[in-house]
């Protein structure tokens, strides 16, 4: 199975395997290029020896022999290097958490816990809205009460005013005065009746 080393890719910005592959291809290319240069230099040197019996084919064979040998060692050594680099350098140990993921360690919420938290927030929002509405209604009533109280106090003040007028005009207790007045009126009526009868 392939280990994609995705967590390492998250940190490095590239996959370690691709990094090693790039290095491998570059090294291999350099090796091949150098061998071609070596071969061409040797062939050029041989041109300076017209009587020489060494053919380009022989030189090519020598190049292939050396290259094959080098490639075998190169592959073996590179394999070891790759293994070491992937294990020791381009690797995030299993117990290590990257800084951007620390929050997963601190707040490992399950689906149910998360849902419960969201539900609680939703409930708090509803409760707040209800309280805000209740507050508005209470304040509206307070305003109404102020107006009603003012009207009722005005009525009471009118009653007070009426009594003050009576007091200013010498009537301390209006009810008693009224009773006294009514009684005196009755007495006067009786006296008048008496006088009329005596006059007849």
């Amino acid at each position: 199975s392939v280990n994609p080393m995705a967590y390492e890719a998250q940190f490095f910005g590239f996959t370690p395997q691709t990094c090693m592959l790039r290095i491998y291809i570059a090294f291999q290319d350099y090796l091949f290029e150098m061998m071609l240069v070596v071969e061409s230099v040797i062939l050029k040197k041989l041109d300076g020896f017209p009587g020489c019996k060494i053919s380009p084919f022989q030189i090519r064979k020598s190049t292939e022999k050396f290259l094959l040998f080098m490639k075998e060692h190169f592959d073996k050594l590179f394999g070891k290097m790759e293994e070491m680099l992937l294990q020791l350098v381009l690797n995030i140990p299993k117990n290590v958490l990257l800084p951007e993921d620390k929050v997963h360690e601190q707040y490992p919420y399950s689906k149910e816990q998360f849902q419960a938290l969201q539900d609680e927030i939703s409930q708090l929002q509803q409760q707040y809205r209800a309280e805000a509405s209740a507050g508005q209604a209470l304040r509206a009533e307070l305003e109404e009460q102020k107006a009603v109280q003012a009207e009722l106090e005005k009525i009471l003040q009118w009653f007070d005013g009426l009594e003050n007028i009576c007091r200013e005009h010498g009537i301390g207790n209006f009810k008693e005065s009224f009773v006294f007045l009514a009684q005196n009126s009755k007495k006067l009526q009786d006296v008048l009746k008496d006088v009329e009868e005596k006059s007849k």
Partner: protein
Amino acid sequence: FDELIVETATKRKQWPKKILMHAIQTMKAEQE
């Protein structure tokens, strides 16, 4: 495959922050 891994890993690193930014803006707007 390699491009896909790098793309996915980059998204894993960057997108939570972007999503969080929007979530925080929403919560702040609600608070205001």
